[in-house]
């Protein structure tokens, strides 16, 4: 667990100070009529069950399967991704960057937690925490090593710091040995980390 994570103790009857603070805040905002508690439930359910990295995996699998779609994705990712039904909050303006044997891409937000919610869901804790945000730009190879990823020494690393509302998705290289695979089967090889650039797509042997 990252060292900055606020440990919570919701399991028992005692709520942590921050849990109590948020509970009080919610009661107050409902009482004042600013928020609809059912809307909160729908928001949470949406990000827990509907919007997540499987959306992005479908985009990547389509790009691996269809050269025309891939070309569209690299030229106008916002439109290409919207064509699959993934639009909206924190995905209003998308850019896809392609990994090649020559270049590996890595995405970070050094200023906050910018992340393509519409295709990857909410970011993991490490993405929002100081170790990743501080070091991805200055020491990308060291960071990748902490994810167990060591690239050939001559591979260039392109780091994308999402300082505006443009959200990035990495198009990982299609694993070898997947000729003739369906999009659905291919999407099973696409991990969240491979779309951030802290990992690679799974090879067929590992996935099965």
């Amino acid at each position, binding site marked *: 667990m990252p060292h*900055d994570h606020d440990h919570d103790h919701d399991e028992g009857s005692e709520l*942590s100070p921050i849990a109590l603070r948020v509970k*009080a805040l919610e009661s107050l905002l409902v009482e004042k009529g600013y928020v609809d508690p059912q*809307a*909160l439930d729908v928001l949470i359910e949406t990000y827990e069950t509907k919007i997540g990295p499987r959306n992005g995996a479908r985009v990547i699998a389509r790009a691996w399967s269809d050269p025309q779609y891939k070309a569209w994705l690299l030229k106008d990712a916002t439109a290409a991704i919207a064509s699959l039904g993934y639009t909206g909050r924190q995905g209003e303006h998308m850019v896809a960057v392609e990994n090649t044997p020559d270049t590996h891409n890595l995405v970070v937000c050094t200023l906050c937690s910018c992340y393509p919610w519409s295709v990857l869901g909410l970011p993991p804790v490490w993405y929002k*925490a100081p*170790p990743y945000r501080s*070091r991805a730009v200055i020491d990308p190879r060291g960071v990748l090593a902490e994810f167990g990823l060591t690239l050939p020494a001559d591979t260039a690393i392109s780091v994308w*710091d*999402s300082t505006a509302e443009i959200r990035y998705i990495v198009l990982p290289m299609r694993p070898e040995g997947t000729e003739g695979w369906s999009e659905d089967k291919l999407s099973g090889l696409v991990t969240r980390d491979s779309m951030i650039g802290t990992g690679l797509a799974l090879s067929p042997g590992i996935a099965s």
Partner: protein
Amino acid sequence: MNGPQDLGGQMGFGAVAPEADEPVFHAPWESRILALTLAMGAAREWNIDKSRHARESLPPAQYLGSSYYKIWTDGLIELMVAQGLVTREEVASGRMSTSPKKVAGKLLAKDVPAVLAKGGPTSREADAGPRFKPGDKVRTRNMHPTGHTRLPRYLRGHVGEIVRLHGAHVFPDTNAHGKGENPQALYTVKFSAREVWGEARHPRDTVSADLWEPYLEPA
């Protein structure tokens, strides 16, 4: 502002700690504050730039000592107090003691899917055309504004190349302070790692950022 949020290149935070099978939320309160923050956006009392500035304005020790959703909690409270939606006494007690402020909107459960699908695009029509084009060399300004900016410290005063033009987008430096959307051309600018970090870096590595025209001058 040179706040605690501007982390690029800082040292001493230790190793990244990936977590196997990380849950979307680690505790129920995290999901509630995320949802409260999203829902309160419907009141239209602030914009995304103002909310970022509220979080960045937390004292550095508080910011760096907090989990991400605790920063969101404190940021949301600061915004609501500043806008007169709640008082600090109400926040402490969790009970209403002043009349609600009339606000522009309220997010209802039935509207959540449509609101999320719509999002909040920041592209705008600009008064003037872009000054630069892909392939141009630019230098980032050496600037240290006390207000909000999205030009990270580590990229100030460096020469990079325009690799993409995104049209004009809302300019955070004014939008965060109620001074208008003031749309400006937005570019992706690519810098060599050696230009930014020195000769010890890999000669082929690069770092790119999305930067608004007022951050840039011809190189």
